């Protein structure tokens, strides 16, 4: 992991010596077999030069000028000191501590897959790859189903795309980044999460509320950052196959090669296909799209621990095709006709990024980093007779410097960001082009008293060609009442330019006319969006009848100073206009987590949302936003089995007026159940079976005027519940 390589850097030798590093392998005996031991501490006696073994038990350590005594230590085993006299590969066998000897008590606790932190200053929850295994499937958009903080909604009745929401606001207001490079935005706002396969992800960091100034000004209500698997710690060879009963197949293949102790590369290939036509509600429209995707990631990692350099080079390529709409639609015959309503969305993407980091081995608290990323997104699509094409090219550069003032209680980060986005859109019969450019600098100071209080204060100044020059402040405070009670407070502002078409693409799959304030302006007369976010949270850990538990309360409020109102209130039209009045989102989340037994975990959460804004027709609750949500998850993990069950309750929602409900609707509340069983016969092999939406709850008649798709009332956008119905699936994972 990245952290291990940083630890390695921190402990590297200062001496540039002709002597090569020493390397070796550390093992222990289990019955008749020798197994590698990961995480063994190895250091030259009396020095700061040290390292740890990786999951294969391998290590490499630079030489020491002062001693030839090499210490091996690991909890539960006898610490050994070896005298190294040659440069042969070192084979070390660790001996377990004598059971009669009561010196060591090994208390092992499997790390919880969702770690809430009592220590972090910001409200960040880390989700590990173990948690991602619980999700049925398959890509990032589907990885949040067992996470209580993220609400997953259904975007529309046709594409099957899921939309992610946090504290009451949806993804355009969240910053979704990959390894701290803003990723799902602009053209990829709607489908972007489905372009990252779940098996590529090493971990995710979910921040509620205004995040850090380091990543830019666009995170208005939160941030989801994904870390992908790194070449050094990737699986040597991994295969994952998935198949659902309703025709979805997925394949993931990972390989990696260590070209030298410093250079590693990996190659991840992902293929998926949906080839079965499903129309269970018999409305003659496909419930799930027909689709094909190929997706490739190639990463290169270079680490020079002695000099303190780490570098990554990534290249991703993807092609995705979807066909939606009428069951009888055949693109070759019916495209551009009114015989059958159909749609195709063809996307190609290229992402390239480069990262270079330097940590002075003598000064581990000082580091400098550089990132450069380029992406191209090309989408050609049509929905019935409506065309929407978008080409989005983007450049992102960032320079970051990390250091301390006096000691590590006072840390600071400072740096520069550059961003360039060029959009070229074809909307129905009109072409629109625009460019967003920004340059900004930031400074963030973090104070950690090492006792109760810690906090960070950050400020950015950016100059954007559309937003002008502006300041973005962000502040976080953490107060630890005790070791098990933590309070957090945050406040910050955020801004973005609205990309009305790419962020609301579902509008094309309807006959709604598009109304904008000023079509001849390059920004359509729409002002930039700006908001303030305030957050307060408490985490309290306690033992409930000897079961370690915690209670969490999160309160957040987002207030918009300017917002581009997306008004669906009038059937047959979608209107975009600048906010005049108020728009806010208040959210409350009450969570309870408990470790019922060492292998059994329970998570419960209740969420309350009050999201309202002033439309031209008056103040209303945001449509398709429930006031109440409830989440429950029970998980069992042992060495041979993993069982997981989730229940999600969604309360009643307001649906605006549509052709078949001229006064709008208030939906019924409903619950969804997901369950999964994984069997692990050997540590390298897993089989899993499960069902998503096991109770087969579906929205009745999700498509308005489905019999007259070329008429004026056709609408597939007002969807609040699953259209797909239950999905039963099987899969396997093999780690060679």
């Amino acid at each position, binding site marked *: 992991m990245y952290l291990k390589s940083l630890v390695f850097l921190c402990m590297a030798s200062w001496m540039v010596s002709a002597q090569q590093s020493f390397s070796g392998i550390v093992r222990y005996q289990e019955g008749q077999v020798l197994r590698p031991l990961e995480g063994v501490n190895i250091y030259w006696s009396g020095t700061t030069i040290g390292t740890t073994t990786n999951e294969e038990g391998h290590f490499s350590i630079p030489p020491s000028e002062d001693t030839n005594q090499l210490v091996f230590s690991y909890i539960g085993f006898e610490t050994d000191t070896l005298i190294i006299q040659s440069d042969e590969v070192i084979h070390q066998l660790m001996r377990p501590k004598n059971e009669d000897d009561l010196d060591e008590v090994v208390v092992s606790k499997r790390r919880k897959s969702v770690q809430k932190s009592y220590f972090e200053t910001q409200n960040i929850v880390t989700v590990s790859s173990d948690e991602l295994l619980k999700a049925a499937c398959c890509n990032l958009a589907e990885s949040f189903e067992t996470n209580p903080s993220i609400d997953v909604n259904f975007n529309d009745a046709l594409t099957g795309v899921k939309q992610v929401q946090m504290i009451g606001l949806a993804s355009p207001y969240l910053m979704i980044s990959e390894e701290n490079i803003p990723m799902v935005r602009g053209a990829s706002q709607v489908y972007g999460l489905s372009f990252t396969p779940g098996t590529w992800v090493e971990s995710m960091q979910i921040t509620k509320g205004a995040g850090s100034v380091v990543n830019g000004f666009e995170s208005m209500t939160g941030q989801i950052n994904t870390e992908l698997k790194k070449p050094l710690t990737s699986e040597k060879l991994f295969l994952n196959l998935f198949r659902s009963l309703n025709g979805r197949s997925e394949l993931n293949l990972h390989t990696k090669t260590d070209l030298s102790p410093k250079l590693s590369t990996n190659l991840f290939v992902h293929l998926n296909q949906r080839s079965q036509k499903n129309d269970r509600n018999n409305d003659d429209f496909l419930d799930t799209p027909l689709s094909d995707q190929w997706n490739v990631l190639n990463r290169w990692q270079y680490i020079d621990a002695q000099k303190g350099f780490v570098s990554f080079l990534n290249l991703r390529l993807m092609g995705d095709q979807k066909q939606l709409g009428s069951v009888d639609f055949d693109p070759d015959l019916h495209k551009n006709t009114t015989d059958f309503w159909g749609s195709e969305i063809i996307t190609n993407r290229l992402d390239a990024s480069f990262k270079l980091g330097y940590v002075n081995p*003598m000064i581990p608290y000082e580091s400098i980093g550089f990132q450069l990323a380029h992406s191209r997104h090309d989408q050609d699509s049509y929905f019935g007779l409506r065309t929407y094409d978008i080409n989005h090219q983007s450049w992102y550069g960032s320079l970051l410097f990390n250091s301390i003032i006096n000691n590590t209680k006072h840390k600071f980060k400072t740096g520069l960001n550059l961003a360039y986005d060029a959009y070229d859109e074809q909307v129905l019969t009109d072409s629109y082009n625009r460019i967003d450019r920004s340059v900004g600098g930031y400074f963030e100071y973090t104070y950690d008293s090492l006792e109760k209080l810690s906090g960070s204060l950050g400020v950015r100044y950016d100059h954007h060609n559309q937003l002008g020059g502006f300041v973005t402040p962000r502040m976080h405070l953490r107060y630890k009442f005790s070791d098990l009670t933590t309070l957090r407070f945050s406040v910050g502002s955020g801004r973005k330019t609205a990309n009305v078409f790419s962020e609301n693409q579902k509008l094309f799959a309807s006959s709604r006319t598009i109304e904008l304030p000023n079509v001849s302006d390059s920004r359509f007369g729409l002002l930039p969006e700006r908001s303030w976010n305030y957050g307060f949270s408490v985490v309290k850990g306690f033992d409930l009848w000897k079961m370690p538990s915690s209670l969490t309360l999160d309160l957040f409020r987002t207030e918009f100073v300017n917002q581009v109102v997306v008004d669906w209130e009038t059937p047959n039209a979608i209107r975009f206009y600048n906010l005049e009045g108020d728009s806010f989102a208040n959210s409350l989340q009450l969570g309870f987590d408990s470790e019922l037994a060492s292998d059994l975990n329970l998570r419960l959460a209740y969420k309350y949302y009050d999201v309202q804004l002033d439309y031209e027709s008056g103040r209303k609750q945001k449509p398709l936003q429930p006031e109440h949500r409830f989440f429950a998850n029970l998980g069992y993990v042992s060495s041979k089995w993993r069982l997981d069950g989730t229940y999600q309750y969604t309360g009643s929602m307001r649906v605006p007026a549509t052709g078949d409900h001229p006064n709008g609707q208030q939906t019924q509340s409903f619950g969804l159940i997901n369950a999964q069983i994984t069997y692990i016969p050997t540590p390298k092999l897993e089989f899993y079976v499960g069902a998503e939406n096991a109770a087969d709850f579906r929205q009745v008649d999700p498509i308005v005027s489905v019999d007259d798709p070329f008429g004026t009332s056709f609408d597939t956008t007002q969807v609040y519940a699953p259209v797909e119905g239950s999905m039963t699936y099987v899969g396997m994972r093999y780690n060679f």
Partner: protein
Amino acid sequence: MTLPFLGMAQDQPSKSQSDAFEVYGNCNMCKSRIEKAALNVNGVKYASWDIPSGNLKLIYNARKIHIDSVQAAVAVSGHDTRDFKADSLVYNELPFCCQYVRKGEKAKDGQMTKH
């Protein structure tokens, strides 16, 4: 650029001197206590204590302080170090889970060890 290790002759003390010594302790709470005690010594820039090995890595301004002043500060907080011993009164006030096996002593029945 060559930099000195412990106990070797040096031309000019470094402002970012790197050094390490063993500190006795058990757990994460001990880690916080040890690192805090070290960082509170004016001149110490960085302190990191590793639980399994007991190794406390330090970076400090060798022109301002001597490493023994850091050892002493850590010992005052209740943790035995390579060259210093903590006051028994302070040790006895530590939370039960932190009462490590003292330097030169054997583990007692029911005593907690590293975790």
